[in-house]
């Protein structure tokens, strides 16, 4: 359609979106998906996408940086694929659209909290519509390395009204499973040092002036974030996973819960 329009700018010629083209056929899991279900959203959803039917499942793993989240996500993806599931891994700041922009905005300390929050929401919405929802429709298990809960917790810690954040993320689907890797800030800080030897500015909450001392700021900030997750636990049905244990133990715990869930769906 667009290609026959000389009035449109050159860049616009490629404007037709083909969300499915990014995904291979999920033949591995074909034939044993559960029935189609209507996709449920937290709020108003995206009214222009009417009556979305999905076959896949959305599993979220939340947790602070250095909680082992990404490692576990990878291990779980490998295991699920070995079991014959088609899996799509996704995470924050990975959208085609604006991930670069987010980094620029972070480097620019003049950016306000509401601006950053909307920026992350836009990035997330892009992945949702272009990757996550198409994959769910096609019967994938979508494994999300963080979801809206981190974004809402960050907002709340920075003084943005809870109700505003909740409404903002009303366009997001309700996951089937949500895990939170619960690691004590005191333990977390050592894992960060083992990994990077420096603390990240934002992950230490340095932008909100908790302490001039970065180490102290990190502990306070991560403590506040953990409290936010505690508050969200019941409301959103987060399963807290004790992340202070050895990696294998945490892995086994997560795998067992995911297997149990997926077996129930057959």
């Amino acid at each position, binding site marked *: 359609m667009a290609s026959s329009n000389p*009035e449109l*700018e050159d860049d616009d010629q490629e404007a037709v979106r083909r969300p499915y083209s990014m995904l291979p056929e999920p033949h591995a899991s074909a034939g044993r998906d559960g029935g189609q279900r209507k996709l449920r959203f937290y709020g108003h959803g995206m009214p222009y996408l009417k009556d979305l039917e999905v076959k896949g499942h959305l599993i979220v793993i939340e947790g602070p940086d250095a909680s082992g989240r990404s490692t576990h996500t990878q291990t779980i993806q490998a295991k699920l694929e070995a079991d014959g599931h088609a899996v799509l891994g996704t995470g924050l700041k990975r959208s085609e659209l604006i991930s670069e922009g987010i980094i620029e905005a972070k480097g620019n300390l003049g950016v306000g909290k509401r601006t950053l929050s909307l920026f992350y929401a836009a990035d997330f919405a892009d992945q949702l519509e272009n990757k996550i929802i198409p994959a769910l429709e096609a019967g994938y298990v979508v494994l999300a390395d963080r979801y809206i809960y981190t974004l809402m917790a960050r907002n709340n810690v920075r003084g943005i009204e809870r109700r505003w954040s909740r409404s903002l993320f009303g366009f997001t689907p309700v996951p089937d499973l949500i895990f939170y890797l619960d690691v004590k800030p005191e333990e977390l800080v050592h894992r960060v040092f083992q990994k990077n030897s420096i603390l990240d500015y934002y992950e230490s909450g340095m932008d909100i002036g908790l302490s001039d001392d970065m180490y102290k700021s990190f502990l306070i900030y991560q403590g506040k974030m953990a409290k936010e997750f505690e508050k969200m636990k019941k409301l959103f049905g987060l399963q807290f996973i004790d992340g202070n244990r050895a990696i294998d133990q945490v892995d086994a715990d997560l795998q067992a819960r995911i297997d149990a869930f997926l077996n129930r769906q057959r």
Partner: protein
Amino acid sequence: MDQTKRGGNGGVGRRRTVARTGAGTGARRMRTEGAWDPAAGRLIAVEGVDGSGKSTQLHLLEQWLRHQNLKVFKTEWNSSETVKEITSRGKKKGLLTPTTFSLLHATDFADRYERNILPLLEAGYFVLADRYIFTAYARDIVRGCHPAWVRKIYSYAAKPDITLYFRVPVDVAVSRILAGRPKLKYYEAGMDMNLSNDPYESYRIFQGRIVEQYESMLESEGLVAIDANRGIEEQQVEVRARVAKLFGDRETGPLTTGPLKEHGQQ
């Protein structure tokens, strides 16, 4: 009511109050009619479809205010340096969905609000907004976002002291824009909504729907309709007269000079 004579000279006896509007950062000093308070910022917004002449009117208003040695700041829709580049990248790639389109514009607005609009209002500036939250309401709702969701996103923003809606028959506005056979951009023409394969036809339909949205919110949002089907100078006299009401008991300069003054007063 002879509002055009010369700055509403305090006819209304209401005292200024310090009021809070919106939530969170939306708090600011609000003025009511009465005594002039140089420390209370004034927020003036113009709205209307492309080709309604609103930018021309805002420019003339800006000149008038500056001529009176008032502190003026003008801000335009979709103009944040931080966000603009990223937004236009997404637009060029044709990657935006109604939700991401909405959120990127919300990010742009938030950046301008947090950095400019709010601090300048607090500093007592006349902040002139060429398009404000009502543009987002109209466009995003036409694109299929949920009205309550869109409104909540902008709920933190201060409501303007006055919003002038430049009302013009949609055919007139569209003809003005299309007269030069411009190269319409993909989203500008509303091509993402599949209204028509012809960009010009799509643009017409899209603009018509935007007008419907504006008309439906005139009363509920308190927009002041200005008949934009008149001469530029005639409209400007009315604009200045309406803005002069925000001056309380401060004298305003003449609304215009020359023969137009009488013309505007009739």
